[in-house]
């Protein structure tokens, strides 16, 4: 499932406005996965409103995709654009760490 990104991108954080493409791999409705999903949505709407594209892969639905993408632990968040690719594992409870990881790399480009 792909969540539609916010139609009005907020450029208040002074970013280049490049589209952030991220994929969250979850394992059904397990606790860690649900937490990660909640945390990620909050982060995206707060820090990257309007210019992110989030793809959610439930490994229970598509288990072989995880193997192909080399995702092992759940939940795992993968940022594919802007380059470079970055992986964050865990329930994303440390907002600052997650935002910095998504942002700082994005700023370099």
């Amino acid at each position, binding site marked *: 499932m792909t969540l539609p990104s916010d139609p009005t991108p907020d450029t208040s954080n002074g970013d280049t406005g490049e589209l952030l493409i991220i994929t969250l791999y979850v394992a059904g409705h397990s606790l860690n996965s649900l937490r990660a999903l909640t945390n990620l949505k909050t982060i995206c709407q707060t820090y990257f409103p309007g210019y992110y594209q989030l793809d959610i892969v439930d490994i229970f639905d598509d288990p*072989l995709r995880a193997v192909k993408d080399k995702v092992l632990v759940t939940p*795992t968040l993968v940022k594919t654009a802007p380059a470079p690719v970055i992986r964050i594992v865990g329930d994303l409870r440390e907002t600052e760490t997650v935002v910095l990881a998504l942002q700082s790399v994005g700023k370099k480009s």
Partner: protein
Amino acid sequence: MSPESYEALTAGIQKMPTGIADFDEITDGGLPRHRTTLVIGTPGSGKTLLALQVLVNGAKHWGEPGIFVAFEENSHQIIQNAATFGWDLLTLERERLFFLDARMSPEAIQSGDFDLLGMLASLSAKAAEIGAKRIVFDSVDVLLALLDNGRAERRELYRIHDWLAQSGLTGILTARSESDESVVAHRYDFLQYMADCVVLLQHKVLESISQRDMRVIKFRGSRFAENAFPLVISTSGIEIFGSGGEAKQFPVYTERVSSGVADLDTLLVGGYLRGRTVLMTGLPGTAKTTLCGAFLEAACLRGERTLLASLDESSDEIVSNLASVGIHLQPHLDSGLLKMYWSSREALSAEEHLISLRRVIREHQPQCLVINPLWMMLQSGRDILNIITNTQRLLLLTKNAGITSIFTSLLSDPSEHSEETPYQISTLTDTWVHLSYILQAGERNRALSVVKSRGVPHSNQVHQMILSDKGITLRDGYAVNGQVLMGRRRNAQETADQSKGERTRLEIDQQRRELELTEAEIKTRIQTFQLELGVKRAALRLLELEQTQQQGEVSGQPQDAPLLSDTRLDGPGTKSDGIQTSSDNALNQGN
């Protein structure tokens, strides 16, 4: 596929063969199917290899597909490593094996808790896709380090455990133990409780020789051999030297096998016993190798397959040395009847020697075997128990196979080392031949004695052994005053004894002659006395006659006087001839 079926529950533990030499025997059939096996080991003890080999063997020999989850190395490294053991994983991978690179990228950022649900879901799908039966997680401690949380560690391990039970897969988890001690780090104790089978691998370095062993610590619902067994990583992967299975009745032979030395065969009432073991001890240069060579040559000439395992001395050296004493092994080496196995002392550990030897024995299937020298080959450091254990292992192998074997050992004098290793080894062997030299009169002579020979009457004498271009001969010991003489000393003694005998004979002759002379003299004297007696008697008669005449003259008859004088002169004259004759005869006899 569900292990929860009634049949599965009542059938007890099912075993999954590993295909690793002797591992299946030690575990009475292999690893527990549909269960979790934990392989714990120090770094470099062969955990990953063992797990991989179980997987590869399953795919190759039983057509059981498998999955390898690599937390530590990437799959390229694993495939490369496997190639060194001749396993073509790339081909297998296409058909029956799947490698999952589960290394956490070092760049990955961690934020909060995570679990293995996703991975296990993926693995379930993959397992179903390829029909996997076996799965390896290598190694769980890397995984646990990632989780870095005691509670999470347990939770995830139990998750794997439960998942294995549900999936019907047979799982192998590897874990590193932190030290050389057998105890896994306290942190992972619960792993041992959780697993149904726990195998401990150890890697030690003794006097710069690397040594590995394996031991099954636990096996729920199954019997297993509890000892530690040598483990070797060879060119074909892991090899384990087990106990040789159940205590077997060794094949019993009554046949004799020639020692290659006719005199020694006589001594042993026909030779060594077929299928038994001969211990041959002696200092360097006491011709142990020569006797072994003679034994092998005789075997080859009978058309038997033979094996000579030696240390430090190369095949060429041995062959040319033996040729100088008339033992020709080269033709048999060429024909393939004789096989030589040799290695330098430091190249391999005792266990590696043992396992290499076993491989060669199994390949060549010899009927006669020589290991020269035994200790050097089976000794790891100074551990005497180790030598004995290794010798027992080797003996089980040779006795089960009915191989007639000679093991040689460096040893000076059996009586001087009563408490040491060779004696303990000697109790394991059936015949003990001791070689030595005896130093006498400035020369060194080789000596051979049969210290023991089970079930065979044998001489207890020390024999002199002579090596010449005609081969080996034995001479009976020559004992004088409780000392065995050999060589020149013996020859001298023999000569001395011979000349003494001659002198004695001459002396007796001389004495006999003297006595005969005395006898003759006495006889002569007796005859002389008899003659004298005759003379005296005649004189007495004359005297009586004279007396009668005088009485007659008184009555007028005087003419009898000349008669009397004639008788006196003639009588002794005639008799004296007789005396001279008999006396001459007596003297002639005396001469």
